[in-house]
């Protein structure tokens, strides 16, 4: 018999063990049921699973389980030269790999004291915004599909494919681009690229109008997403929440504005915020940020330099010894603050590379908190509304 703290039997919540402080569920009582959601559930954006304890159709406890995508990138990188780490890092986040490439390159350059050409800085920013656009388009599809609107998902995923076509033209790769390499970028823009980008952006803009009408003013979506997974401003810092999840709660923070990197200080844009703090407000923030990305790409194509070098020659990368030191580089990806903490001990191999993905806090601690009292049918919608990618939790 487990000794529990004072307990009211009428409560739908279980008694708490006096020693461990954990909830004690009597699964034979008929009051509770365990449901596993994942690791292959389509509502969850990637392979992770939720161990849900439900009372009726209401979740009263949620535990997240990760590890299905663990490939030990950080450990593997300790045995590889910097240039050998480069094709590994992009695999840490599949739908938006360019941030890994950029931060790894930026960190390596800073430790090695390398200055990259101006044109490369513009090309990097252009690639990052295109990656943000592709990631947001995929996310809109996921969010709509989680509430049963699969058609919207088909529209936006088609548009994402057109962005991937542009990436293919630019770098040769659709998913993993390996375009932003230490020293600059790998290639110049192909002839007529700006024109084709503009054609694609115009198409996407039109689809976003349709998405806005079909999703944001849809009675079913509003009814289910409003009030779901409310993040109050007071828990934003407590839980390390960044990106659209924080901005959906009225917190005006964006690394592109606060700590501008690359060429963001030369572009005109404002921080998108909403005040609802729920899944509906977060959807608005992301939809507007999708349009913002389109606007930023247009601005960049208009004012970026068209001549000059795009790559700074490096020493022989197979024998490249990086001077000892440590640095932390960060950027605003679609999910929040993405960062690389890099430590070099002066040898050819990195001492430690730590990847800070925003999903680490959003998908584990925050999800476990927000899932309580949510209807089991809304779990997928809640999970997607936090926009998480499990590979960056496990690395």
């Amino acid at each position, binding site marked *: 018999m487990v000794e529990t703290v004072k307990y009211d039997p009428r409560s739908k919540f279980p008694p708490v063990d006096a020693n461990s*402080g954990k909830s004690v569920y009597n699964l034979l009582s008929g009051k509770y049921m365990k449901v596993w959601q994942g690791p292959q559930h389509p509502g969850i954006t990637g392979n992770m699973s939720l161990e849900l304890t439900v009372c009726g159709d209401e979740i009263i406890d949620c535990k997240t389980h*990760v*590890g299905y995508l*663990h490939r*030990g990138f*950080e*450990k*593997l990188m*300790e*045995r590889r030269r910097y240039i050998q780490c480069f094709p590994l890092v992009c695999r840490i986040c599949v739908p938006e790999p360019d941030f890994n490439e950029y931060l790894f390159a930026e960190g390596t350059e*800073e430790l090695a004291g390398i200055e990259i050409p101006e044109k490369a800085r513009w090309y990097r920013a252009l690639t990052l915004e295109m990656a943000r656009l592709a990631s947001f388009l995929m996310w809109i599809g996921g969010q709509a599909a989680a509430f049963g609107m699969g058609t919207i998902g088909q529209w936006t995923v088609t548009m994402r494919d057109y962005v991937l076509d542009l990436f293919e033209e630019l770098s040769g790769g659709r998913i993993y681009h390996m375009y932003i390499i230490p020293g600059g970028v790998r290639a110049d823009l192909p002839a007529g690229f700006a024109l084709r980008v503009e054609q694609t952006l115009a198409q996407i803009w039109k689809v976003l109008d349709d998405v806005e009408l079909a999703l944001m003013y849809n009675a079913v979506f509003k009814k289910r997403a409003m009030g779901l997974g409310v993040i109050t401003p007071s828990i934003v*810092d*407590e*839980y*390390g929440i*960044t990106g659209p999840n924080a901005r959906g709660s009225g917190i005006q*923070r964006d690394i592109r504005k*606060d*700590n501008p990197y690359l060429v963001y200080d030369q572009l005109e844009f404002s921080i998108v915020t909403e005040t609802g703090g729920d899944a509906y407000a977060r959807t608005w923030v992301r939809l507007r940020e999708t349009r913002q990305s389109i606007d930023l790409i247009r601005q960049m194509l208009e004012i970026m330099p068209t001549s000059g070098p795009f790559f700074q020659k490096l020493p022989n990368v*197979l*024998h490249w010894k990086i001077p000892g030191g*440590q*640095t*932390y580089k*960060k950027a605003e990806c679609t999910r929040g*603050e993405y*960062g690389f*903490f890099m*430590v070099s001990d002066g040898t050819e191999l990195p*001492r*430690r590379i*730590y990847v*800070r993905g925003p999903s*680490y*806090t959003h998908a*584990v*601690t*925050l999800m476990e*908190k927000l899932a309580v009292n949510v209807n089991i049918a809304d779990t997928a919608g809640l999970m997607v509304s936090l926009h998480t990618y499990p590979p960056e939790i*496990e690395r």
Partner: protein
Amino acid sequence: MATERQERTIQEVKDSDPVCDGQAGLKFVHVGADQAVAYITRLRDVQGYTHLVFFTAIDYIEDSIFRLTYMVHNYASRQDLGVQVDIPRQGATMESIHHLWPHAATYQRELKEMFGIDFPGSPGVDDSFILEGWTGIPPMRREFDTKLYSEQTYFPRPGRVTHDTAAYMKEKLYPSEAETW
């Protein structure tokens, strides 16, 4: 009411003049293990470093230490501060900071699993995080050899030729450069 020891520690933290290095927007500070949590609490509550960006460890096996790195951020001054604490590798234990930031418990759970650093009192610190059922040494420690582990765990399919990477590159890929190495 603060005990005498706590008061002394807080005073030491206030008096300490941490050695900072790094470029604008990012600094690193080294503090002693017994002062670290008091120092971080002061950073959060008094100096406005309200955001715990990440918490990780670096293994310096040759010096027999783990260097814990708490990265905190101040949104007002837009400054990142890496608080670094050296703790001995042998029986590595550190005070928990889950009472300051709830998500620190997840970082501590991972550090326990990957480096074997204990954080007594941290919620769920003994539960497995990524490596369910792992019984070997914590894999992020430097003495864990990934190559040896894969050789012992997995076996190559028959009929495949493998080369020593360094020798093969010298012979085949860069024969002209090999003499200069």
